[in-house]
């Protein structure tokens, strides 16, 4: 069956209006948040139920047609980049919050539910959904699961993986099954979360909700240099304090934020640090005093404390707008996402600075300093020939630095298509082969979001389930037959 026949089949089952074949409308889906990778999908379907997704997957499997799941399309590594010869399965109609259960501190949601909507729905009960990517106003929880997304507050509360208890999934065979924590079998859920849509499509997610803290305290500390800011971060963590968030911005990103949202950060700051503590009042008060002391000791020349929610928002505004704000000071930019051990911060930042000066490419640094997750924004002018290539090069060199210092090529944006080629720099061939054994178990035919995460697909050998003769091991009595 070709794509046209599939489209007819899906239209019959799901309804005409939910199957897109019109080239103009297809273009809407040609990329995710990583806009320089584009491909017009062969066909888009917008199913409304798990059964419909299972049907779509079964038809694709039978026809040998690849398919890609898409939530809100905010991914920054091209994970939802469609296939021109395939089907894009969009979850945006599946936005029901099925249950909120404050007694058990959990919620059950459909995959298209927007991250912030869940927090909004849980707040009246005194709860929230802890993973808070900056894109939380638009990204879907299905996408969060696929990317194991984090946010500013994951330093204390962990990533999506720590908050998902179970997923109903449609397997690449088109079966609906449930993978969960604590069912006594393999932790398939642990492998699924963060697998970037390559092991199946999740259709229902049970998450843990987190109790709203008694108190939240936020401060902004300004330092003359980024090194001083980095030293303050080390001192805070070294003192045994686990803040809810520690974020840092350098002079260039402060300049951009100022231009965009007039956040009014202290003049002349080479770096600002945002530190947020939350929890029981007495602990927060005591540790907050300690944080202020440590910042001052490490050379903070101004410390502002948010007295209320409005002031807290003001402090966060500059940080939250940083990515977009960079557009004010540069026609184009690349967002990098790498991780280093937090103690390597000063050294790595100095090297990035060197790189920038040597190449003449400006780099604005915004990062989750508490867990060493860097988001360098590499600025360039796309009208200038070769500028994009030079920026790419600097961006790649920054990843080298991360690897050299024992870190990772991605802390939260995922590998997708963007970084698949970098995987062999972090992992050996055997490492990658072993990871792909999981993929072979779930998707031996390699139709589920192919071409993502791994630079080269692994041959899966015999496809389980369509074995015609007894396995040699069974014949020899060395293995059980199931």
């Amino acid at each position, binding site marked *: 069956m070709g794509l046209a026949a599939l489209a007819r089949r899906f239209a019959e089952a799901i309804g005409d209006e939910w199957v897109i074949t019109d080239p103009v409308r297809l273009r809407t889906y040609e990329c995710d948040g990583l806009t320089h990778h584009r491909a017009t999908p062969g066909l888009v379907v917008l199913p409304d139920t798990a059964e419909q997704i299972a049907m779509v997957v079964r038809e694709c499997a039978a026809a040998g047609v690849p398919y890609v799941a898409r939530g809100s399309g905010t991914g920054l590594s091209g994970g939802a980049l469609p296939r021109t010869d395939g089907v894009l399965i969009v979850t945006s109609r599946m936005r029901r919050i099925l249950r909120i259960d404050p007694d058990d501190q959990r919620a059950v949601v459909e995959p298209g539910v927007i991250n912030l909507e869940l927090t909004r729905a849980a707040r009246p009960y005194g709860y929230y959904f802890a993973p808070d990517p900056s894109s939380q106003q638009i990204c879907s929880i299905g996408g969060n699961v696929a990317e194991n997304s984090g946010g500013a507050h994951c330093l204390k509360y962990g990533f999506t993986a720590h908050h998902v208890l179970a997923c109903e999934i449609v397997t690449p065979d088109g079966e609906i099954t449930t993978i969960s924590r604590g069912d006594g079998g393999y932790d398939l*859920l642990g492998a699924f979360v963060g697998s970037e849509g390559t092991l199946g499509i999740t259709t229902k997610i049970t998450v843990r909700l987190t109790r709203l*803290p008694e108190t939240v305290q936020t401060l902004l500390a300004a330092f003359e240099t980024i090194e001083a800011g980095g030293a303050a971060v080390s001192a805070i963590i070294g003192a045994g304090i686990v803040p809810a968030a520690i974020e840092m911005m350098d002079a260039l990103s402060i300049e951009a934020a100022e231009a965009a949202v007039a956040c009014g950060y202290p003049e002349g700051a080479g770096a600002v640090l945002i530190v947020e503590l939350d929890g*029981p009042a007495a602990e927060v008060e005591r540790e907050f005093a300690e944080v202020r002391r440590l910042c001052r000791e490490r050379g903070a020349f101004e410390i502002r404390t948010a007295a209320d929610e409005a002031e807290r928002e003001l402090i966060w505004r500059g940080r939250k707008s940083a990515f977009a704000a960079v557009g004010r000071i540069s026609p184009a930019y690349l967002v990098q996402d790498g991780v280093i051990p937090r103690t390597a911060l000063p050294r790595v930042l100095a090297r990035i600075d060197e790189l920038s000066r040597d190449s003449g490419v400006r780099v604005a640094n915004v990062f989750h300093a508490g867990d060493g997750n860097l988001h360098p924004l590499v600025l360039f002018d796309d009208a200038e020939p070769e500028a994009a290539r030079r920026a790419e090069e600097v961006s790649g060199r920054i990843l080298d630095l991360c690897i050299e210092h024992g870190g990772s090529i991605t802390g939260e944006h995922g590998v997708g298509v963007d970084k698949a080629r970098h995987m062999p720099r972090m992992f050996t061939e055997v490492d990658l082969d072993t990871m792909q054994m999981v993929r072979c178990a779930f998707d031996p035919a390699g139709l589920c979001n192919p071409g993502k995460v791994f630079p080269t697909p692994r041959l899966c050998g015999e496809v389980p389930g369509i074995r015609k003769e007894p396995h040699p091991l069974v014949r020899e009595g060395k*293995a059980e037959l199931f």
Partner: protein
Amino acid sequence: MTGDALEALRRVCDEVREGRPEEGVLGVTPSIVAAPGTVEEASAVMRVAAERDLAVIPRGNETRLDWGMPPTRCDLLLDTARLDRVIEHAADDLVVKVEAGLSLDRLAETLAAHGQRLALDRPLPGSTVGGTLATAAGGPLRLLYGSSRDLLIGVTMIRADGQVAKAGGKVVKNVAGYDLGKLLTGSFGTLGLIVEAAFRLHPLPQARAYVTGAAEHAERAWQAVRGVLHSPLAPAAIEVDAASDGPVTVGVLVEGVPEGVAARAEAVAGVLGPDARIADAPPRWWGVYPEGSTLIEVTAPPSALPRLVAALAAAPGARLRGSAGLGGLFVGLDTTDPAEAAALLKALRSVGAATVRYAPQPVRDEIDLWGPVPALTLMRRVKDQFDPGHRLSPGRFVGGI
């Protein structure tokens, strides 16, 4: 054939000898025991095992070797005792990387010297890092800090074919590649040999308080648990201890700075009731598996607590203990009667998932240790990929895996 294999193993590993009957894994005596001293040696041993089609069972400190089903065969017991180094403790990064044979107790000592800890309970003294991961074991602290799988940030394994593979790394935040560490956690040695693990650490709290109170029945206990869970008191653990007929004891751990802990402990005591007591030390039963020759691990939502306690009636003498706040508990029972164990399991499984960890052999023979596990087909396929010859801890795991 044993003689041959013994020779081949001796060529690649310093410590290889014949197995002894008392080293049997649930009665299955290993032909050979090998104790590699390095990852390279472990890899070479696994390669020889692959070439000679030896069934391999990893052994840590034997605190949980009696969990699960007896292996269908055991040619080689791979002892991790010599793999016991702390590879790197990056104290300022709150990260530690260790070898799998290191005991959690020794690791705790090393870390405590720096005011740090791996926030993982040690229900059985002496257990190794590898064994704890392989059995996904944990205790009260899971409520606040997560389970072993959540604290694990990197893993090195030896595959069935002897190749060394790793996943994750040594930074807390990392989404590059599949998280094989989670897959290996709780895999009971059936997918590969865990040789190294990196963990995220936490600072040791300056102060702790344990608040305990008795509730006259399960419904009251759940009200107390719910009260604490729903409060902003940020408890590190909420445990219960209940017999089938007696009262239910609720225990809560608060951790933090001294002033804060005192005030929060008072507040918790207020929720638990007028008889609640505050102490610096844990109650006797804290973090200890309930007594009995049979141990069942139960997972159910926290609000199922009264129904779990009611289920104990199916086997008088059964005891329920564990994290009521999380919904991860244990049931202990002393019986050699398969029918009694089966009745208890049936009652528990009408409430949540229940996995038998150990039981006397006559009981084990008669009951289904796991009960229904939804994605078993996928699990079998994972096994087929990782261990196509079904040589790693064969028959020990769910569905005969």
